[in-house]
């Protein structure tokens, strides 16, 4: 039934159902109770712990690990969720190797940090398995807030506002809530529909209505929202994509990596997702790695990730780079695309070597390609917004925009590192600021 990896062109159903299941299983199997105790025992309960400082949401990591170690994983879950309501997803997708675990004193001392991400997953999974939302909503304040975008920033903001008793309507342009958690993260990082389950669990706080398929600039406009609501929080993410800047990018087989990942995430079965035999991914961030690895897992024979600068400059962490290499992705650095060739469909793509200052070196090479996935950065791609700075919505630390009663957070602002966890932090902090403003 499987057509195999050698068939040229872009094709679906390359692998057997078993192989797909194996390839897309949990990247890191969750810790069992014993493993969690052993891992928790390694935490030194540092004073003013560096891991907490490194966490964008300031989760009290030594405390939750001690709670796990003393047999109270649900209390640990509450410690995590009270800072980061998407702590379950963050436990799966955070680049812990560049955040909490990088600064863990045991990483410094032994090169082997406490498994903070895995322990966070243990605690959050444990609490979520109780099927009871751990927080209560305050008495209804009668205040109404519109949140535009149901990604991590929007959901975190909505939840915190709901906790404070405000009524929240969350608008999202997609059919499902979750944003990049639902559409944009590699499948093997969030197995068993975790993103969807997490949203349902989060909404149990009450007071939040989700209205899907509604976009700013489409069904919604900012002026109308500010009229109808006491406050507005914009968490619209980055809907646009950067152009490749190489000729021939209109050819069949060239597509945006974000769309590819979204298709994969929403597919009913992996066998339905078409993938090339010779896939070239262009970019150096998490999206590029997620696309390249998943192309390989879908049965592409050759996957090459090409980045225009050096390995050190890649936004994807070293762990992600190594993951890609381990899965068989070839990484080429210091090369920028020049021309995509082929008749109707892409057949090859040529690159020119560049030095670290992006000065072309005058040497060109060509890769065979029947599919090209571009992941070279996203743009705001929306209008009718408050003032921008460097292409993103300009905000204060509390998320206030240039428009009165309008806050913003997440990737659509230039505040953070475009990580799930920074989006959560901004959503939460904006909610607190909105709450203060509404109480004034």
């Amino acid at each position: 039934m499987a057509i195999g990896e050698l068939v040229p062109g872009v094709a679906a159903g390359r692998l057997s159902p078993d192989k797909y299941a194996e390839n897309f299983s949990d990247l890191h199997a969750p810790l069992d109770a014993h493993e969690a105790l052993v891992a928790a025992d390694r935490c030194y309960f540092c004073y003013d712990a560096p891991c907490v400082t490194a966490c964008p949401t300031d989760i009290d990591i030594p405390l939750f690990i001690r709670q796990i170690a003393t047999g109270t994983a649900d209390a640990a879950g509450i410690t995590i969720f009270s800072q980061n309501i998407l702590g379950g997803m963050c436990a799966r997708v955070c680049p812990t190797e560049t955040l909490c675990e990088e600064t863990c004193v045991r990483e410094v001392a032994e090169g082997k940090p406490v498994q903070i991400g895995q322990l966070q997953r243990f605690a959050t999974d444990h609490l979520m398995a109780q099927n009871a939302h751990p927080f209560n909503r305050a008495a209804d304040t009668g205040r109404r807030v519109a949140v535009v975008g149901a990604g991590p920033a929007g959901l975190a903001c909505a939840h915190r506002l709901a906790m404070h008793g405000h009524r929240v309507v969350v608008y999202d342009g997609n059919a499902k809530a979750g944003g990049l958690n639902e559409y944009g993260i590699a499948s093997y990082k969030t197995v068993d529909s975790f993103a969807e389950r997490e949203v349902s669990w989060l909404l149990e706080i009450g007071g939040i209505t989700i209205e899907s398929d509604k976009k700013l600039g489409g069904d919604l406009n900012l002026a109308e929202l500010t009229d109808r609501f006491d406050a507005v929080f914009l968490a619209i993410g980055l809907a646009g994509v950067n152009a490749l800047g190489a000729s021939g990018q209109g050819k069949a087989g060239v597509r945006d990596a974000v769309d590819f990942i979204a298709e994969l995430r929403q597919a009913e079965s992996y066998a339905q997702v078409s993938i090339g035999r010779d896939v070239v991914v262009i970019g150096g961030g998490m999206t590029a790695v997620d696309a390249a690895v998943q192309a390989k897992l879908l049965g592409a024979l050759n996957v090459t990730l090409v980045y225009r600068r050096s390995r050190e400059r890649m936004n994807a962490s070293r762990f992600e780079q190594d993951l890609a290499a381990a899965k068989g992705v070839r990484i080429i650095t210091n090369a920028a695309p020049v021309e995509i060739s082929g008749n109707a469909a892409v057949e090859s793509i040529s690159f020119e070597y560049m030095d670290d200052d992006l000065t072309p070196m005058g040497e060109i090479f060509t890769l065979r390609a029947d599919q090209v996935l571009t992941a070279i950065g996203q743009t705001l791609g929306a209008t009718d917004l408050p003032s921008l700075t460097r292409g993103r919505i300009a905000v204060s630390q509390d998320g206030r925009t240039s428009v009165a009663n309008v806050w913003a957070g997440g990737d659509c602002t230039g505040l953070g590192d475009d990580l799930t966890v920074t989006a959560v932090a901004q959503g939460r902090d904006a909610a607190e600021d909105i709450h203060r403003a509404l109480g004034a």
Partner: protein
Amino acid sequence: MANLQSDFIGIKSPNPFWLASAPPTDKEYNVRRAFEAGWGGVVWKTLGLDPHIVNVNGPRYGAIWGADRRLLGLNNIELITDRPLEINLQEIKSVKRDYPDRAMVVSLMVPCEEDPWKFILGKVEDTGADGVELNFGCPHGMSERGMGSAVGQVPEYIEMVTRWVKSHTRMPVIVKLTPNIADIRGPAAAAHAGGADAVSLINTINSITSVNLDHFAPEPMIGDKGAHGGYCGPAVKPIALNMVAEISRTPELQGLPISGIGGVTTWRDAAEFITLGAGNVQVCTAAMTYGFKIVQEMISGLSQYMDEKSFTSVDQLIGRAVPNISDWQHLNLNYVAKAKINQDLCIQCGRCYAACEDTSHQAIAMSDQRVFTVKDDECVACNLCVNVCPVEACITLEPMAEGTVDPRTGKVVDPTYANWTTHPNNPASLTAAE
């Protein structure tokens, strides 16, 4: 490799590591395995009179654990052997015959009357055993019947029974002491007065290791009830070391041989007991945790240590630390030290800071870059930072040189020795008024 040959009150063994009277020495099968593994001797699990006692049919042990479930303390409610006397005696004879070079000591516990002691001693002598150990220590079960620690807590009984035993046997007699008393010197002196050839200590400590918070009962639970047990393992070592030291440094007890027991887990623990005056050591919990093979590490470790220190026999190590055991009142109050943090080893966890700042003398500074340094003008050299630091040898206590000024007190470090007995703040100062 150093010679570990041991001669304890005339009982010879190839090394000073014996298995204590306990479950590991209850049967021929176990003891043969122990000797094959290399143990120098055993104290056979306590024999009593028939009809033999019975044990509970539920859990006998409770425990506490450290990181990674490392067993730190074990307690038990097991009684003396629950097998017929004759079977034990036959097995003892059989094993001793096959392992003539190993020490075979038999632990005994019978009621506090002369005839039962006379009866059982005759039986033991017939086995060819090397000696007997009188179990005056078990703190649970048997003590409710007037035996074990019920005897060990009354010095008069200890002396009386020891005297009986000595008069009815030619075998060397070791008296095993209970730690469940206020002052170990009393029972030790009573054993000495009764003619004991040696004392062994400590037996287990009265304990409840945990409480079941669902059923509200001490653990281990027999059905819905629990009883206190006897505590042993690494956690009791400090208590045992002190009791051994108390006996060693008592002038009236000089020359009373000691078999050291209590949490011996490694060669180092054994060496510590020996330096405090023990002639050999007995081990139980470590074997019950890791199996008999651990004796190989004890043998190789003690040998290496002795080679490094140029000791050629274990006897040279016995009691070497005893002259340095002092009372507090004789400690030198002019000795001044300061904690020092090795920045190359520091992993910046800040535990020293939390401990000192929250619970001690606010003598550690923390910079914005998480560099931790000792404030010499506040440090009293309490050692807490050393003890809470997860990195060995990262923080050390460094003595201040004579003649330097202690920035905390502003006083010059005085090279002369001066203790509390002569301190001006001591109302009972021995310094005579001029």
